């Protein structure tokens, strides 16, 4: 009899998730029908290439290539970011053009731009997006503010769900200003019970719930279009990379709750509360990442890393505030069979010694400006690494320059496997011929 998920070891769970990635299902839950035997073969080779690179057990057939794309395919297809955010078919057709013409080993679907109308309905405040605070021709950008105040740590620590639903959400969604979630812990016996539900009779609260339902309709419509696209690409032989996202607890607190200035002052003025809040956020981040990964049957969980970069924190601050809960998050994901994929923006030269402390063959690290020879030397025996294809080169360089850099990277980091070709930071404005050169050069020089 097959073992239950609870009875499996982390190793076995990882194998199960890789197996599910290798054998995709269609939207009805049946085995996916590939377009041709060749497409099926290509699909399995691509997934296996990643599996081998990540697990460090077998040498892959060649270096896998995983471009991390933002709005790149939008520009490639001649659309504006605003157009693809409001017309899901355009987003899909742009992503299709990118995958079929450039043939990366894995792709990120068409989900990057996100559903504009959904953000409209909820009046999302955390981001400015094309046509809403930034030009229709540009990518969305985060609007950093203190969405959580300096004196709200206790509220977050004591009841994070309540803090998110009743304090944070009303601040980041204009349409949810009157939102209030049921205080379920108030629900006792029969006497006085109904008082707890009075808020749901008030018109502003009802309007917030109405907005939520409308947003849900739109999210579902968008998700169906995105799912159909991933299925179409899988049938054509192109696996999707990751849908699960998690964040280092320090970044969650520092990026979108307290903001950069807020958290940096807090680590002086109220360090104990910061540490406690990070502990409270950690299991929530694990659930977010692992839940999405297991739901989609894809082991990789994307974790963009921000505020732990060289220069952002001292060594001591990194070891005290950043790394312990990031490591806990990674270990929690690994326990669930997932592969944490840390996308390290900026440089991590001074962190390599610290982040080495991860189990072998369970993690993937992509670097931006980190010294890759040093990264290979420090991490090569425990983790798969990637990255460092510079975005400036992809934006203004020539295909020859890109090819030369790709070759250099493969020579430096490819030896013995455990290397994936990734661009340093997400691709928006980049020359299509340069992105193609990055992909083609990997296929040409990266063969083992």
């Amino acid at each position: 009899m097959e073992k239950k998920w609870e009875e499996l070891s982390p190793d076995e769970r990882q194998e199960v998730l890789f197996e599910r990635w290798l054998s995709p299902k269609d939207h009805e839950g049946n085995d996916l029908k590939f377009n041709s035997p060749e497409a099926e073969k290509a699909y399995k080779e691509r997934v296996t290439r990643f599996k081998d690179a990540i697990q460090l057990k077998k040498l892959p057939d060649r270096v896998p290539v995983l471009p991390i794309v933002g709005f790149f395919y939008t520009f490639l297809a001649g659309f504006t970011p605003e157009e693809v955010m409001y017309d899901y078919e355009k987003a899909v057709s742009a992503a299709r053009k990118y995958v079929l013409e450039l043939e990366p080993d894995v792709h990120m679907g068409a989900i990057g731009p996100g559903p504009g109308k959904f953000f409209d309905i909820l009046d999302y405040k955390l981001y400015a997006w094309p046509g809403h605070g930034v030009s229709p021709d540009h990518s969305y950008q985060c609007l950093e503010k203190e969405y959580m105040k300096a004196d709200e740590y206790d509220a977050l620590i004591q009841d994070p769900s309540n803090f998110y639903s009743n304090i944070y959400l009303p601040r980041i969604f204009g349409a949810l200003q009157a939102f209030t979630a049921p205080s379920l812990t108030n629900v006792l016996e029969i006497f006085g019970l109904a008082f707890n539900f009075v808020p749901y009779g008030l018109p502003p609260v009802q309007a917030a719930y109405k907005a939520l339902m409308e947003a849900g309709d739109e999210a579902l419509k968008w998700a169906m279009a995105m799912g159909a696209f991933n299925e179409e690409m899988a049938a054509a032989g192109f696996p999707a990379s990751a849908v699960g996202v998690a964040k280092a607890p320090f970044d969650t607190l520092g990026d979108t709750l307290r903001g950069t200035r807020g958290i940096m002052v807090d680590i002086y003025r109220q360090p104990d509360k910061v540490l406690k809040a990070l502990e409270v956020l950690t299991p929530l981040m694990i659930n977010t990442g692992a839940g999405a990964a297991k739901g989609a049957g894809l082991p990789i969980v994307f974790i963009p890393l921000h505020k732990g970069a060289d220069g952002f924190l001292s060594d001591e601050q990194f070891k005290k505030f950043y790394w312990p809960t990031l490591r806990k998050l990674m270990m929690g994901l690994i326990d669930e069979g997932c592969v944490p994929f840390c996308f390290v923006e900026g440089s991590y030269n001074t962190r390599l010694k610290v982040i080495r402390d991860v189990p072998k063959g369970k993690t993937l690290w992509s670097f931006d400006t980190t010294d890759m020879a040093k990264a290979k030397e420090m991490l090569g025996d425990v983790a798969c690494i990637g990255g460092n294809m510079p975005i400036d080169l992809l934006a203004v360089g020539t295909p020859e320059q890109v090819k030369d850099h790709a070759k250099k990277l493969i020579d430096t980091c490819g030896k013995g496997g455990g290397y994936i070709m990734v661009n340093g930071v997400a691709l928006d404005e980049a020359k299509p011929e340069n992105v193609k050169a990055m992909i083609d050069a990997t296929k040409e020089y990266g063969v083992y």
Partner: protein
Amino acid sequence: MAGNLVNALADLKEEEAIKIVKDRLNANEDPLKILGDARKGMEIVGKRFADSEYFIPDLVYSGEILKVVSELVKPKMTKEADSKKLGKIVFGTVAGDIHDIGKDIVVFMLDVNGFEVIDLGVDVPVQKFVDKIKETGAPVVGLSGFLTLAFDSMKETIETVKSAGLRDKVKIMIGGGQISEEIKKYTGADAYGKDAMAAVTLAQGWIGGK
């Protein structure tokens, strides 16, 4: 006493700094002298940042302490501080890009190193740079950008400065996120700075003050 405030600020001892300021104000000391000491403390913070002893949290926190100190001192001030600066620098994050953290760090470092920085903020329209250069006669311009869209925005800004006939009157430095030597060439800037200290060195080379 005087040395204490300098050190308290430089060592990021907020409570101590506030206590010293309150004591000195109660003793009816010249508020400008107190601010002068706070400023010396900030210069040491800048130096420690440049020497990689301090990092961004330390810089941000020192700014917060200075804010508290200034709020205590300002109501007692009868005249404006006499600020003799080395030279003017027009600074901003280019059009389309709304990132401010990197820009603010560079502005901080230029300021504590004695330059008068005219900070235009983020998402600065091309024409605003041109107008400010004309208005202030600043010999140095700093363009900041985090996203790749900044490459074209910087290029356009520099071209507009050129067509306004100002290009030979200013030195232009660029920096931020993914800015590199390649992008310097692409945009037509005079130099690119890898970090805040590089910006200070560039400004010192162009304006003086080393």
